[in-house]
């Protein structure tokens, strides 16, 4: 059986693995429930890793390496494979040319951007002329647990008055205006946003909005207003209480070390 012979040959195995990996990454992962397309940059990264793995596989023993090289060698020297050779020699420069063209061609699309969603907050901010130290700052409303439901209700009202158009009814960043924005409004249901943050960080982002983003949070054409101009300190804390209450996430807490409160969060974010 000819097929079985191909299936055992390292060269064709290598080709098959690469094709299979590409199919899985490009079409398999997006087809899973709740998934989405994989960005081109990540596809490239995954394929490069798989390629390295495949090369290691074919070359880690002498016999396999010799077998792997055989078809390549044959294609380069054997007279009967001249069509393959010529096709390869024509296609390869064309492929390189096409990739180069793709790289340098001007498009109407904005270039891919690297935007840090959670940039480093300043150690302290000025809120309406009042200096607030963010490090170790707790939500003051949580100090009054019995009136927490009232704060959540107040936060809900404020959210629906101010935040709804962008961040949406489900707090998932899918408000009516969301489609018009880049960057998109934050999705609070996602495990990567408020679930990863201390409440003081969320306070900073709400109070200072897009204009308050540091450079690494750019391109900061973020439409988020500086809510300190419209909401009071108490109102912002209420909204934060509401966000956590509604999504069910727990805010990241400060670590207690020697009486001081500091964050010990690590993470390749």
């Amino acid at each position: 059986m000819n097929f079985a012979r191909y299936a055992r040959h390292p060269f064709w195995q290598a080709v098959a693995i690469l094709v299979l990996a590409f199919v899985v990454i490009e079409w398999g992962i997006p087809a899973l429930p709740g998934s989405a397309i994989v960005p081109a940059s990540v596809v490239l990264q995954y394929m490069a890793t798989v390629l390295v793995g495949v090369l290691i596989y074919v070359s880690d023993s002498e016999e396999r390496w010799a077998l792997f090289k055989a078809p390549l060698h044959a294609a380069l020297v054997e007279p009967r494979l001249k069509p393959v050779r010529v096709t390869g020699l024509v296609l390869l420069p064309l492929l390189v040319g096409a990739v180069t063209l793709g790289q340098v061609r001007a498009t109407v699309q904005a270039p891919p951007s690297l935007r840090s969603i959670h940039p480093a907050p300043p150690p302290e901010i000025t809120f309406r002329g009042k200096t607030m130290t963010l490090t170790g700052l707790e939500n003051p409303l949580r100090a009054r647990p019995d009136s927490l439901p009232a704060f959540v209700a107040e936060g809900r009202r404020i959210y629906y008055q101010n935040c709804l158009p962008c961040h949406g009814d489900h707090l998932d960043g899918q408000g009516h205006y969301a489609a018009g924005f880049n960057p998109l409004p934050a999705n609070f249901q996602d495990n990567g946003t408020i679930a990863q943050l201390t409440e003081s960080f969320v306070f900073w982002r709400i109070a200072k909005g897009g204009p308050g983003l540091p450079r690494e949070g750019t391109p900061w054409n973020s439409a988020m207003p500086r809510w300190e101009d419209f909401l009071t300190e108490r109102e912002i804390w209420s909204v934060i209480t509401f966000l956590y209450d509604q999504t069910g996430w727990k805010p990241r807490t400060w670590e207690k070390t020697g009486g001081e409160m500091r964050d010990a969060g690590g993470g390749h974010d």
Partner: protein
Amino acid sequence: MWATNLKIVGVVLGTLALYTLIANKIPQLQSEVPQALTLGANVTPEQLVAAGEKLFNGAGGCTTCHGLGTRAPNLLTDEKGTGPIGARCGKREPGKACKQYLFESLDNPTAYVVAGYQPIMPVMTKQLSPPQIWALIAFLESQGGTVDVTASDIPQQSQLTPGASPGNPGGSFAGGSTDPMAIINAAGCLGCHKLNGAGGLIAPDLTHVGARRSAESIRRKILDPASSIAKGYEKMAGIMPKTFGTMMNAAQLEALVQFLASRK
């Protein structure tokens, strides 16, 4: 032997090239130094305008409202035939030249609110330093008008007393004036309190405060807002800034207290 050496060099250079390429393929981001605006004594109007434009589009946060949308007038385009802000600024308030009008709208935004808009603008002199404010004014004037801001408008930094916030030269409101209404305007009291029908709703009306509180009680309330909360405003506790005591001098505080206590 040379073939081996070349191969080694090839492997080394190839590895280096790969790593360099990867690091260069991702979008590049440089961490800039936060710019403190320093304008010398011989700053040109062009420099001021350029710095102001940056502020207008950037750290000033002006475009949040003064851009597209209806929250505030668009400053860069024509409004009802009066031209952009540089052209219309001199005609807004009678008796105020363009420069004075613009400074007032940044320093005390509620003093004059254009008809049809809400008094929501924050006091920019609290957020920006004097050089930034004047750069912003220069930029706004350049929008259809003539720039007449000069270096002499900008208070020199040596006048700053250490520790004072930049928007608050001398450590007191309104240049140390003891006119109660000037203090009330500068401190932004009417953002929350109502006085003679003007002002906000989230704090008690001060029009007749003298009938409810003694001078002593008003003084204590200004210095320590948490000391007493008016009935019906318990939910708003904690909103009144605790910093007024440190923001005005004793004469100003007394003038303010006596003025309010006399409002029976």
